């Protein structure tokens, strides 16, 4: 992913921020998902969701 975002991506980032102005955590998640998809495509996004789910498993194991 280029460090400088293209105008459409910049627009999308702004819209996401506006949309989730009361839920910044969700805003960050949406941005992350968008950028992962741009960078790594559908498979990359699926891998990310799997990773998040694995983290849920490991976090709980760590706590217990």
């Amino acid at each position, binding site marked *: 992913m*280029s460090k400088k975002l293209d105008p459409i*991506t910049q627009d999308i980032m702004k819209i*996401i921020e506006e949309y989730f102005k009361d839920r910044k955590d969700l805003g960050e998640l*949406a941005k992350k998902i968008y950028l992962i998809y741009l*960078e790594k495509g559908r498979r990359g996004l699926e891998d990310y969701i799997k990773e998040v789910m694995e983290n849920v498993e490991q976090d709980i*194991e760590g706590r217990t």
Partner: protein
Amino acid sequence: MKEGLKLESIKIEGFRAFNSPRELKFGDKVTVFLGPVGSGKTSLLKAIEFCLFGNVSEVVERAIKQEDLINDFRDRVLVSLKLVGEEGNKVEVTRIKERGKRTKLRLYINGKPFDKGDPEEFIKDLLGLNLMEFARGVYVKWDVLRDLIIGSPSSRSKALDKLFGIEVLEEIYSAISLKTIERKLKEKEDEVNMLLKQVLPDDKIGDLKLERDEAIKKIENIKTRLSEIHSEIESLSKKLVEMQALQDKYNQLIQERAFLQAREESLSKSLQSIPSPGDIIEISYLLRELKKEAIKLLSALIVGREVESLKKIPETDVRKLIPALKNTVKILETRLEDLEKEITKISNEVITYQNILRRIHENIGSLTERLEPLRTYRDELFFLNEKYGSLREIDNSLHEMKLELSELQVLRREKREALNLLKATIRKIREKGETRCPICGRVLNTQHLKELETLLDNLLKEKGDILIKRVSELESRINELQKIRDRIVFLEEKIGDLSGLEHELKELKEEAKRIGNLATRGEELLKELQTKRNQISSFTKKARRIMERIEPLLAAQDRKKELENIRKRLKEVEAELEELGYNPRLIDEVRNRLSELRVEMASLNTAKKYIERRLNELETILARHEKILGIVDSEEKRIRTYKQLYEKMRLVRYSFRAIQSELRKRVLQRVVKKANEIFKQIYVYPDYAEINVKVVRRVSEEGAIRSIYEIFVKRSVDESWVPMDTRLSDGQKTIIAFSMILSLRELSPCRLKVLLLDEPLLNVDEECRKAWVNMLGKSNMNFQLIVSTQDRRLVEELIKEYGSDIVVYELKHNGIEGPIVVQRKIVDSNNSR
């Protein structure tokens, strides 16, 4: 480097349709790849995408695998692109991909290898876009163009969404799979329900815990009792060891007492016949005599040390004297053996001397006989020497005589020759009257004849008398002397033997005397040794006899003493037994107690094992129960987290739909504005003045609500907005579509000043084609246009428009080697006109 970049050349090998290497240069303005279907046109455009980003959008979208980019007959891809900047900087990007391996990147900036960080990031930064942005804004595929120009409103909307980057949001919406999380949630809930079925009721758990605590208490009690038993066993074991030691001592004393009693009885019996005092006095006397005799003998044998030790022993100390005498007897017996050997040796020597002496006397007799005749020769020699002198004098005389005889013989020969000459001369004078003298050459005649005859007579007289007489005499004398000489030589030789024999005889006599002396001395020594041997032999026999008598007496004395000792020891043993105070009953009591304790201990251990086993079972059940509760707890926490995650993903997923609408509005606003600028620039006809795009919501065939773009154009005549689809020709639609594409390209600030068009005008009519080419010529586009097409007429139109500014490559099929690429020569028709 922050400057616009264009493509200079490409090198391609092993990529899709291209097997053998090819290298092509791009035109500064327009480059066209012309060829039939499957000739490799699209491969060239894909190669540009692969080289710049290391991948192609179809691989990212999982339409194909990266390995599919490798030519079927090759195992390796190489694509190299040269780019040139507006300020003259040069960039060379090379990608190498081998089957089963990762793609390698080589990057050169102005001929130098790049070494200032991540080259992939550098390329993206240099170009100002990534792969997806490239696929959307730089590389426009035929299906997008087709949908824009002649597609249905739905397909046109999809194409525009793709160009605007909005389609990605829809893709993300569908890619966020909530079902995965739902499935996981379901799994977790089922798992928790299953585990909850295994959870025991609280009263049951209470009973088990109670049983466990009781088992622990029982085990503790058993351990305490076992510890007590162990201590008692230890104490009793120590006591038993002590008692066993006492028992051993007791048994030992009893055994000793029995042995002593038996020995006492035996000794008492054997001491019934004790020797008389008279015997003892006699023995003492004999021992004294024996000692004196031994000292004398030892002194004679020069054994000083033994003599001294024997002398020191008092005659009354029989016990010391007897071993000393025994030792002396032993020494003497050893000496006796030596003497016997010495006597044998000397006896043999004396016999040998006597034999030698006899042989010497025989030799002396023989020599004396041989000497008698030799002495007669010595007398004869003496006589001959007296008469003729010594052998040397005879040799001198013989030598002188032989010399004289030799001289006389010479003289006789000379005279004979002179007579013969004289006779010959006389004969010649008588025959010839004269002749020359054979000696001086003088002429002799008859006058000299008489003189010569007188001379002849004188010579003949001399010959017959003196000379012959003397020669005869000499020969006789030499012969006689020679015989005498031979006799003297013979006699001298014989006399030489005589002196040798006389010397030998003398030596033999001396040897006989010496051997005689040795024999005499040997005989004397022999006698002396024999005397000594007889003395020693007599002493040892006597000593042994006396010893044999003394030993039983001494043994009896010893036994008596031993008996006294035994009786004393018996009294001591009895006293010790009494003092020991040993009681066999006590040890049995201790043993019985120990046995009882061990039985109890075994029983307790069995009980302890049983309770421990039960305790383990209880602990396992309780631990398992605790574990299940723990798992249930953690799984419930997970379920809560998954639910939170599901809710978040659900909200985010639906947000992408809302974001699409908002984005569409914003993008459209910018694109329509820019597209109108371009449209006004390239559309020169007065009928239509402006473009507008509206978004309407419609239900699709699948029943889903979709946003559809409707394009309107402002009619100049009445300034009303009419729909593009129903009012405009395909040519006009083409111009509007490219206005939008170019506006998007203009709005994207990337530094790669290139536009790739893959089959831009597929299935369009002549009017459309001409309109598009005309539009390109009129636009102020500052992009490098790279077009792939199978439409020859389109190429002809482009050549007409661009002249020598266009580069056209014609591609033809060529089997497994890959396409043949030929650059077409362009004649600038504008210039020629």
